[in-house]
């Protein structure tokens, strides 16, 4: 099985940048309550979770590895 998705490899850069954004060091001691009840650090990470869903939605649209399913469907002895 080929180890890489055939297209959309640049999406991995987006994933790496998004992963880095998880580290919200600028909100470490921010006790502001967003909308009057949601602590800033918690609010940021709630948005981050939504962003993760959106990121993976984009990812599967642009870089889905169709070849994996094809590989799985072939019998082991079949040539490529």
């Amino acid at each position, binding site marked *: 099985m080929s180890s890489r998705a055939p297209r959309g490899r640049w999406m991995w850069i987006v994933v790496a940048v998004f992963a880095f954004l998880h580290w919200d*060091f600028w909100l470490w001691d921010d*006790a502001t309550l967003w909308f009057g009840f949601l602590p800033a650090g918690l609010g940021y990470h709630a948005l981050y979770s939504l962003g993760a*869903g959106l990121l993976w939605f984009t990812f599967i649209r642009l870089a889905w590895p169709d070849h994996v399913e094809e590989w799985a469907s072939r019998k082991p002895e079949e040539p490529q």
Partner: protein
Amino acid sequence: MIAQVAPAAAQAAAPVSYVPLWVIGGYMAILIGLGLASMRSFRGTSKDYFTASNTVGPILLLLSVFGTTMTAFAMVGSTAKSFEQGIGTYTLMASSSGIVHSLVFFLVGIRLWAIGKRHGHVTQVQYFRDRFESRGLGNLLFPILVLLVIPYVLTGFIGAGTFVQGATRGMFPTAFAETSGAVPPWLTILVVMFVVLFYIFQGGVRGAIWANAFQTIMFLVAGLAAVYMIQRSLGGLSAASAAVLEKSPGHLVREGKIGHGEFLSYMLVPLSVGMFPHLFQNWLTAKDAKSFRTVLVFHPIFILVVWLPCVLIGVWAVGQGLKPSTSNATLGMMMTKYVSDPVVRGLVQAGTIAAIMSMDSQIMALGTMFTEDVVVHLRGKGKVSDKEQVWWSRAFILVIMALSYFLAMYPPPNVFDLGVWCFSGFAGLFPLVVAAIYWKRTTTAGAFASVLAMLSVWGVLFWRGLVAPALAGTPVEEPLVLGVMPVVWVVLAAGVALVVVSLATRPPSDTTIRKYFA
């Protein structure tokens, strides 16, 4: 019948509603019904019992994978940890899991599904034995995986016991005087064990998947309902958070509670999903690779829906000056105290128990592993009938349940900490599975070195960080090593050992490489 157990005098002294217990009883009855229904769909083969004949579509896969990933750790553990440590709990585990879990499902889950489909593997041990041409590697991995799953199952039992204890306080003052009238953990755990065993014995993995899907819907709704009801009782969202700001503002920030090294290193903990035996089994049930798409997108959002309410409730408990017997009881006590409508309270509590009981897949995976990796492996393929395989699986599950029940009688103070240790061990096996899938040059000796390095480092740190303090009766602190979580050293040791030893030793045969990479 339950209401009759409580003496009339006690009821008069402290009016207690037993409606929530009836609602919880109804929920258990539905699970038993699902077990019976899944038995009707059972095709009588071991393949159907262990993989549901690869028939699970995207929605059911999403609900079951999410349900089995979110257990007592998510509901009871997250509330308890937030009560102790504040909002940082969400940032440590929930948002990081949102991206890392989906990443692992993509990088590992889909590939293992494909490999399992093409080569007929049912367990991880079967795959690693074949991939590295080594029976010994499988023999080494089997007990490690079992020993790491047991604490995970334990978090479910302990979570159920303490949650129900917190939620039923004062209900049975005579029958259970030693627990302030609450249903004691030993009884709750027995009931939970019976119900879980019933539906997985009836329907196998299909029973577990159906129950998980139902449980996921239950606890998604329960979390939202709980936070809505509790904030209403506390005077609204703003009033609930303002009380925390006044009483303990430190619970609303991470400064002074979570270091940056600890925060960053927590990002490695969710790698554990790549080696969870129960997830491997869940992945194999998928009808096709496209079924994973829904899981990837909605998993982070579902985590938000479950964790955000729990973390808010845990933090709000601080603002209300709650004094639970252990932090594990925070969620149960908050519901009892601030959800006034008994029917709604019962539904919310049933939803929480639903999350706790979703450790059924872990139990199912243990039975599958024993049957496939020990019984069938030793006696030879084709020499154990389908019926025998199913019975061996059930027998092993019973043994493990008895052991877990015994261990649950001596619980650690916080299920969150136990869960993190368990996940750190699985995360230490992540380099092995990634290398097995993507790196042709990985060798058998490298695989052995990686597992042994993981085991040594994790074992020493686990003893130092959790077992020794618990035995000595001293408080269990965050087990940082040089400012970062133990998982960093466990993964690093396993990864370095794998690469160094692989480069120095002979790779598997061309036949095996072609089998998995061509």
